[in-house]
C-alpha cells in the first residue's frame, strides 16, 4: 500500500470518471437533456434538473488557475515528497470546469520535480495519467 489517499473506484457518481482515466481518457459528465457539463460529477443537472447524464471526452488541455506548494506537517506518504506542488487546472473547453492535480516535469514523474518558483498562473498544461496502486490519477505536464 502506498499510503496515498485514493478514490473509491466503485463510488456511484464517479465510477465512470475513474474508469475513463484507467483507459487514458479524461471524461466530463454532461447532462443528457440540456448538454450542460458539470464537474465534479453528481446525480442531477443544476441547470435543468435532469437525472440523465452522459460522459464525453475532453481535450485534456487547460491552464493553471492556481497552485500551492505543500510543506509538512502532512500525512507520511505525502510528507516524504514535500515540498510538492498542487495545481488547479481550468479546462480549455470551459474555464469554469476545474480539476485539482499535480504539475509533473514528465509523464510518470514524481510530484516534487518541478521547481515551484517556475510555476505561473495561466501556464498551458496537458493531461497525463499517473498510476498509483489500482488508480489512474489525472496529472498534468506543461503543454
Amino acid at each position, binding site marked *: *500500500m502506498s499510503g*496515498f*489517499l*485514493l*478514490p*473509491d473506484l*466503485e*463510488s456511484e457518481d*464517479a465510477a465512470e470518471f475513474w474508469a475513463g482515466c484507467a483507459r487514458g481518457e479524461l471524461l466530463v459528465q454532461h447532462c443528457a437533456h440540456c448538454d450542460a457539463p458539470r*464537474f*465534479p460529477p453528481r446525480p442531477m443537472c*443544476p441547470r435543468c434538473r435532469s437525472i440523465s447524464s452522459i460522459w464525453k471526452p475532453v481535450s485534456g488541455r487547460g491552464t493553471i*488557475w*492556481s*497552485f*500551492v*506548494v*505543500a*510543506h509538512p506537517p*502532512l*500525512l507520511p506518504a*505525502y510528507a516524504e*515528497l514535500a*515540498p*510538492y506542488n*498542487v495545481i*488547479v487546472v481550468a479546462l480549455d473547453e470551459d474555464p*469554469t*470546469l*476545474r*480539476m*485539482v*492535480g*499535480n504539475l509533473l516535469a514528465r509523464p510518470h514523474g514524481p*510530484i516534487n520535480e518541478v521547481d*515551484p518558483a517556475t510555476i505561473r*498562473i495561466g501556464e498551458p498544461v496537458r493531461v497525463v495519467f499517473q498510476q*498509483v496502486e489500482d*488508480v489512474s*490519477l489525472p*496529472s498534468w505536464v506543461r503543454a
Partner: protein
Amino acid sequence: MSEHVLRDRAAIVGIGQTAFGKGLADTELSLACQAISAALDDAGIAPSEVDGLASFTMEPNREVDVARNVGMGDITFFSQVGYGGGAGCGVVLHAAMALATGQCRVAVAWRARKRAAKSSRPWAQVPRRLSDHGQWSRPWGLLRPVDEVAMLARRYMHEYGVTRDHLANVALAFRKHANRNPAATMYEKKLTREQYMEARWISEPLCLFDNCLETDGALAVVMVPAERARDHPHPPVYVHTGAQGLPPQHQTMTNYFNDDPLKGPSWAAARQLWRDAEFGPEDVQVAQIYDAFSPLIPLSLEGYGFCARGEGGAFTENGALEWPDGRLPTNTSGGGMSEAYVHGFNLVLEGVRQIRGTSTSQVEGARTCLVTSGEGVPTSALLLRGE
C-alpha cells in the same frame, strides 16, 4: 407579527469560558459544562431555567450530557449547525430565533473542543478510500484546510494584487490585540513583520503565521428574549440581525468548481444580514471576523461590504484593523490566530465584551459589532448591538 421578527428580539446576557491551552487535563464534556456554568452565573440565571440549547454539529458533547451535568430542566428547543467554522454565529442565530418565536425562554449556545489533540483534526483521520468530495482534491496531496485556502489565496493575490504584506497586516494586528489580553494564548508572545516574513511555509503562499492556533477550551453564551434582557447583572447585547450563507454551486473548502470561487459564502450571508439591519457597514464600530487563515479577513471584508471587490488587501493598510485608531478594529481579543481557536466561538464572546465595554482593547463607546463565522464554508454572521 411585525415585519422584523428577529431584529433585537433576543439578547446575550451571560458569557463564560474556560482557560485556553494545549493538553488541558479536563475532558471536553467537563470543559463545556464549566463554560456553560460560568455563563449562567454571569447572567444570574439558574440552570433549571434553561430550556433551549444550540451548538455545532461538530460539537463532541451531546445535549443530554450537558443538560444532565449542569442540572437543566425541560429542554424544549435544541439545534445544531453544520460546517465547522461556519457555524458559530449560526448557533447564536438559531438560539435567537427560538427565543424570538417563543420556543424557549433561556437559551445556551456553546462550543467545547480539545483541538490540540491530533484526533480532533479531520484531515488527519480521513479514510484511505474516498467516495466523498475529498476524492477530487486529496489524492494529489491537497490534504489540509490550509492547503485548500492557500489555493484560493494564491488566485486572490494574483487577480487583485494582494500581497504577503497585506496578510502580515492581519496577523500582526491580531497579535497586538492578543498582547493586551491576558486570556489569550499569545498574550506574552510578540510578533514582528520580520518574523512573519521569515517564518516557515505551511502551504505556499501561506506561512505559519497565516494559520490559526490549535487550542483546547470551551465558551458559552446565555440568551433571553428582549423583554427580560434588562433583568440581569450586565447590559444586554442584542442580536440585531443574523444570517446564514450558502451561495450557488458552493463546495465547502475546495470551492474551485463554480463561476466565481472568490465570491464566497460571506456575500450570501451579508445580503440577509444587512437587509434587516437598521445600520450599514459604515456604522460598524468594531468587528470580529473569522480568521482560521489570514486571507479570510480581506475576503470577508469584501463580502460584508466594508470595501469593494478586490480591495480587501488594501483595506488592511495603515493599521486599519488595529485598536484603537484603525478604521475598523478587528479581532480585538486576538481572534483565532492569536487568542484561541475554538471554531470561532471566542469571536462571539469578544463581540459581547465590546458592547458591554469590557474588552482589553475596548473601542470607546462601541454599540455595534459585526461577528462572522468562516468564509470558505457555508457560513453565518451576527450584528450585535447595545442599548
